């Protein structure tokens, strides 16, 4: 029985780059969590004007996380396509 190709990324540096992406995303999520709690606190305190800038900052954070995820996914898809080639 022939040994199948691995179904995960074995390129050098992949683990390091994925770990880096993971940590960056985690830190961004912590920042977003702070943004959410701070804007809720301000809202309950009667400050209605800070919510929109907070939301914009949170959306930028989400865009960064989504960009990092898509970059990783694109790399993995490229490798998968290469592995499919006979």
């Amino acid at each position: 029985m022939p040994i199948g190709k691995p179904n995960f990324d074995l390129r050098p540096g992949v683990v390091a780059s994925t770990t880096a992406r993971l940590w960056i995303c985690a830190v961004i999520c912590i920042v977003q969590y702070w943004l959410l709690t701070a804007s809720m606190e301000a809202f309950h305190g009667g400050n209605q004007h800070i919510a929109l800038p907070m939301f914009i900052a949170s959306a930028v954070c989400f865009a960064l996380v989504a960009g990092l995820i898509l970059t990783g996914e694109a790399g993995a898809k490229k490798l998968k396509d290469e592995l499919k080639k006979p």
Partner: protein
Amino acid sequence: MSDTKQSIPKWREDFPIEQEFDDFITRRDFVRFLGLVSAGLMVGNASVVVSSLTHEEGPFPEMEVAGAADMKPGGWMVYKYPNEKTAAILIRRENGEYISFLQKCPHLACPVSYHRSNDEEGEHIGCYCHNGRFEVETGRGTQGPPRELRPLRQVVLRVDENSVTAIGLNEIHLA
């Protein structure tokens, strides 16, 4: 039962996880999950924006504070304003002036109280939870966590000869 156990090869006992499940929670999967968390937090912020756009405050009712006219200088009392769920404090200062604030500390919403002493400390509004203090004149924080936060929200009063009436809340202004 024993037949089933015998049919399991030795290597399967040492490596009981299928290869497909072995890489089930990879770093990449976890990053994807963080993407979901990030999206959820952004939606949470969006809900705060929607709430702030649709939030309407007032008009505030006019409400006579029962027993306020009988208060002696240096005394204080708790009453409910602008609704039955919100507590406020009414202070009658030594000079006879009335002043009122909502009782909620801007730090962690503990109830605040009025303190007066004849020594150099004088009078202040205090919060027991984290030893916060506020100026009586403005409600601004002078000690503890409230120093960095917004002041106490002031209740607007109309003082007549025989009555004290709460007529609204001051605009919030950042400390």
